[in-house]
């Protein structure tokens, strides 16, 4: 029952909804599409968040109770979360000083202030660290070991120059040197044009071919889930 009921639900709803896009009768449009798919599914999804909060709290409480590793930082996580929940949900939207609101989530609230001045800069900086790692990897790892890798690196180099103003500056300079000569050798320095060609033709062609594979794979996985061949989503063995 614990496995067969969910598997039966997936099979039945999957088959029914496979045909929904092809049906235009009122029952399908009003009930199957609008009521269930749009209105009810959005409400069901709201409850899923309780799981994510509870798992975060559980993980941190476990760490604090057992003093695992750097458990002190678990307090930081819990306090940060509790603070945001308190100011956004439990405190009233009364003015705090001249420019701020104590509670609520709209602009000017404490919640929004903390988001803009603490959460955003930290999250933005976390990902910007990758620029440093890519610089280091450029020297240590990106090797032209064979013809294919050489082609990849040359393309990458052209794209890197073609997407920045420097590429246009080089092209304009070369065009100046080329002058009015009938042989337009300066065109080989048209990095922006070459980049556009690379993106529009060979890149688009290969990404299209890869896309076919990806989408076929997604559809196959969907069908496997619907027909109970793929069961990993059930989790556990019970």
């Amino acid at each position: 029952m614990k496995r067969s009921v969910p598997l039966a639900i997936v099979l039945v709803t999957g088959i029914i909804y496979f045909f929904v896009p092809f049906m235009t009768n009122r029952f399908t449009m009003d009930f199957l599409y609008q009521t269930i798919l749009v209105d009810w599914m959005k409400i069901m999804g709201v409850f899923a968040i309780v799981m994510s909060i509870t798992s975060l709290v559980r993980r941190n409480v476990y760490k604090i109770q057992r003093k695992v590793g750097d458990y002190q930082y678990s307090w930081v996580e819990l306090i940060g979360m509790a603070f945001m929940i308190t100011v956004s949900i439990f405190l009233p939207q009364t003015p705090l000083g001249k420019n701020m609101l104590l509670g609520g989530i709209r602009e000017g609230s404490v919640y929004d202030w903390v988001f803009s001045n603490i959460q955003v800069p930290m999250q933005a900086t976390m990902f910007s660290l990758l620029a440093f790692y890519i610089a280091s990897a450029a020297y240590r790892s990106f090797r032209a070991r064979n013809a294919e890798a050489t082609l990849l690196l040359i393309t990458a180099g052209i794209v890197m120059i073609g997407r920045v103003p420097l590429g246009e500056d080089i092209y304009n300079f070369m065009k100046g040197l080329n002058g009015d000569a009938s042989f337009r050798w300066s065109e080989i320095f048209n990095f922006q044009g070459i980049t556009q060609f690379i993106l529009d033709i060979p890149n688009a062609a290969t990404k299209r071919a890869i896309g076919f594979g990806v989408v076929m794979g997604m559809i196959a996985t969907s069908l496997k889930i619907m027909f109970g061949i793929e069961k990993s989503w059930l989790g556990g063995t019970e």
Partner: protein
Amino acid sequence: MSVMNFIGTTLAAIFTLAVFSFLYKDNPFYKFAEHLLVGLSVGYYVGQIWHTAFISWIINPVFNERQYILFIPIFFGLFYLGFIHSKTVWLIRIPIALSLGIGSGYGISYSFQTSIFIQLRETINVFTQSGMDAWDVIKAILLVVGVFSAIVYFFFSWKHEGVVGWIAKVGIYFLMIGFGASFGLTVMGRISLLIGRFLFLFQDWLHIIK
């Protein structure tokens, strides 16, 4: 600049530098920032869900507009809370099964049409556009050759020998150009993120540049 703005920008700069400090080596400032970010993000998520979904989709319609029919999705949604006890944990599978079944079933035909049918049709239609010059024809041929040879490369049911091998080889070269483009753009994207933080530090915080 108001006092709160000044404090805000200074705090933002301090946290930016705390995260950058990881480049030197892992340290307590970075760890503090990392954990605070996780906590704040989840708290922010809850605040958003509460106001823009829970209140406006559940509390208001049910209690103010008396749409009691919504108890049906609420009932199924509450199964997500089954995880609080080991005996009821399996109940989570019910709403997940509904989402998966409905989502997969409904999405298949549109995914197929969007990413396979139209894409394939436009690969063929590339020759039927009006006013094509010689260069457009060359580009169209290259596009078709690129798509076809890359598909052949990924087709492992045939051995990559003879004609198939040659076509697959062409496919590899196209793929390498495609990956090169992605690689170049990846470098660009990562650097843009860093530039964004530097612009913040110099422009918004230190006001060194306007």
